[in-house]
């Protein structure tokens, strides 16, 4: 592990007790984020990507049980921390941006109070310093007349502005890691690119690690240094953005890419590729490949046993029984068809 590593997670699992049994929301997930690096976690609803972020933040619901072999932030072991000690890290070393900017800010307090509060809570300075920091950051996120905005209430701002406030708020204490959970999903398309641009330039400037969680392959392709594709609570493919998009090795990744119409690439009016079948409910004992019911390349071997991640090169891995050769041949033929 290099000294650049901000977050390291090994074999993280999250089990949630539900009436029907135990829900394995996340299984054996490992990841690593470096300073200034963007890791995109991509997957469809219910794949466990948001639970992963809450697990790292230690904000899981009460009924969820977290297990992991390793969970460190800037070389600090998070697994042994008490809730009180963990709280001192949140907002200070890790910041989080949520999906819906309309509901993520407290409606009864001024924006300024909500920004300054983090700074003061973590002992960075007094009211005056906090105000200066807030004004500085508001300017950085491109807000004109920051002093005025700070004395406003959330309902007086548009969605795009509120999301910028959220970004500013996470940067108040200069965090080592930012987790953004679908930060632009609730925004208009024209706001999306601007907000992402802002997020990325600030992340680079502050040299923070960024975990960006999204279902939008377009966002992933444009934002990610490295990508982790999740399906059914597991990582099914990891690699750099180029590797994953140009040469997907897991049938699910390939399927996802084929599903979306791309201007200039898919023929208008043509049939889109599609993934049949349903997402498994992750309750009870899970055995074999979770994607087998929707996969064109399924064999008997896929139905049982523990299917592990196969590593192709450093940081490049996939969870499938097809050999890299096979997957290359089969998937690329299909992609071309």
């Amino acid at each position, binding site marked *: 592990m290099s000294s650049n590593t901000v977050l390291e997670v090994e074999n993280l699992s999250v089990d949630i007790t539900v009436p029907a049994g135990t829900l394995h929301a996340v299984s054996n997930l490992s990841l690593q984020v470096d300073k200034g690096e963007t890791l995109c976690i991509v997957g469809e609803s219910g794949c466990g990507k948001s639970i992963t972020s809450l697990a790292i933040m230690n904000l899981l619901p009460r009924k969820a049980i977290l297990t992991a072999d390793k969970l460190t932030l800037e070389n600090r072991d998070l697994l042994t921390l008490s809730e009180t000690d963990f709280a001192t890290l949140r907002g200070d070393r890790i910041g989080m941006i949520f999906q819906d900017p309309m509901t993520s800010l407290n409606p009864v307090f001024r924006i300024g109070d909500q920004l300054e509060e983090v700074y003061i809570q973590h002992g960075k300075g007094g009211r005056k310093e906090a105000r200066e920091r807030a004004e500085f950051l508001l300017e950085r996120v491109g807000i004109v007349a920051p002093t005025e905005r700070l004395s406003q209430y959330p309902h007086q701002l548009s969605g795009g502005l509120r999301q910028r406030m959220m970004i500013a708020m996470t940067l108040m204490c200069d965090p080592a890691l930012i987790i953004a959970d679908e930060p632009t999903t609730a925004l208009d398309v024209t706001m999306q690119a601007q907000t992402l641009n802002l997020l990325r330039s600030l992340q680079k400037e502050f040299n923070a690690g960024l975990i960006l969680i999204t279902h939008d392959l377009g966002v992933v392709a444009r934002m990610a240094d490295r990508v982790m594709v999740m399906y059914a609570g597991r990582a099914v493919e990891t690699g750099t953005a180029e590797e994953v998009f140009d040469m997907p090795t897991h049938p699910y990744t390939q399927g996802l890419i084929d599903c979306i119409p791309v201007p200039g690439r898919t023929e208008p009016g043509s049939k889109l590729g599609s993934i*049949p*079948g*349903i*997402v*498994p*409910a992750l*309750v009870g004992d899970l055995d074999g490949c979770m994607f*087998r*019911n929707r996969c064109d390349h399924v064999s008997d071997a896929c139905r049982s046993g523990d299917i592990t991640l196969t590593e192709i090169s450093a940081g490049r891995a996939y969870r499938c029984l097809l050999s890299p050769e096979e997957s290359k041949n089969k998937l690329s033929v299909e992609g071309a068809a």
Partner: protein
Amino acid sequence: MPDAIQRRDLEDQVDEFEIAVPSPPELMKRRAKSHRGFIIGGSVVLFFLAVAVFAPVLAPYDPYDQDLTNRLVPPVWDAAKGTWDHPFGTDALGRDYLSRLMFGAQISLMIGFFAAAVSAVVGSCIGMIGGYFGGRVDNFIMYLINVKLALPGLLVALSLVSVFGGSILALILILSFLFWDRYAVVTRSVTQQIRVNDYITAAQALGTSRTRIIIGEVLPNVMNQIIVIASLEMAVAIIVEAALSFLGLGVQPPTPSWGLLLSEGRSYMFFMPYLINFPGLAIFFLVISINMMGDGIRDITAPEGRN
């Protein structure tokens, strides 16, 4: 539909990972079976109901029969004077207290049930109309609700009873007038939430009449709430009826209303506390079990559909 159309049988085979999701009725049945409060509350309510219905058969005496030689006989567990002739003792006029309590259940349940039902119909109609139509109609209905809330209900009820008398029909109507607003407030706000759903717009786009939309699309989704409020309001109606009778402005003597029993027993309560405890506890247990049932219904019918 043209014949040449390709039939799609995309999802006809059952997926290996498909698990049976119960339908809303099944879900409710399941939740009902495992809801302790609902079962206990429901059983006690059923017990009271059975006592009320079969009072003429079950009661050992005529509740109006006076026996002045056997006045104020204590219950059977009073070692000195209790007898099995009158297991719950007798009142100041020697009437069998158990029989009077059993017939009292009739009055409480009848008034409670009908008051809750009448006000449910009136209040829900008002609420759904306000919630669905919005605008001026809704403003008017909000104004009606505000007027109702502003009036001191119990006082108005007392004055009305003193004018119209304490017949059971009058009591039911007066109590209904007291309770319609809760239904209106709740159904109105629930209807407002339902109205914005696309299935309502879809029905409108079909040219469905407003009445049909309210009855066919809105009502099934408000019904849970109406039943929950109805159960709670029935409990309150029972208490208020007892209160009116206790104050002497409800059911008139010698009818064995529980409230009346309490008020009659009050003069003797320092020496014969059972005279107030029996009717008091009867009201308490009936009301608490109805409440438990109502809370149970609320949990059982908790909105499903959205995950």
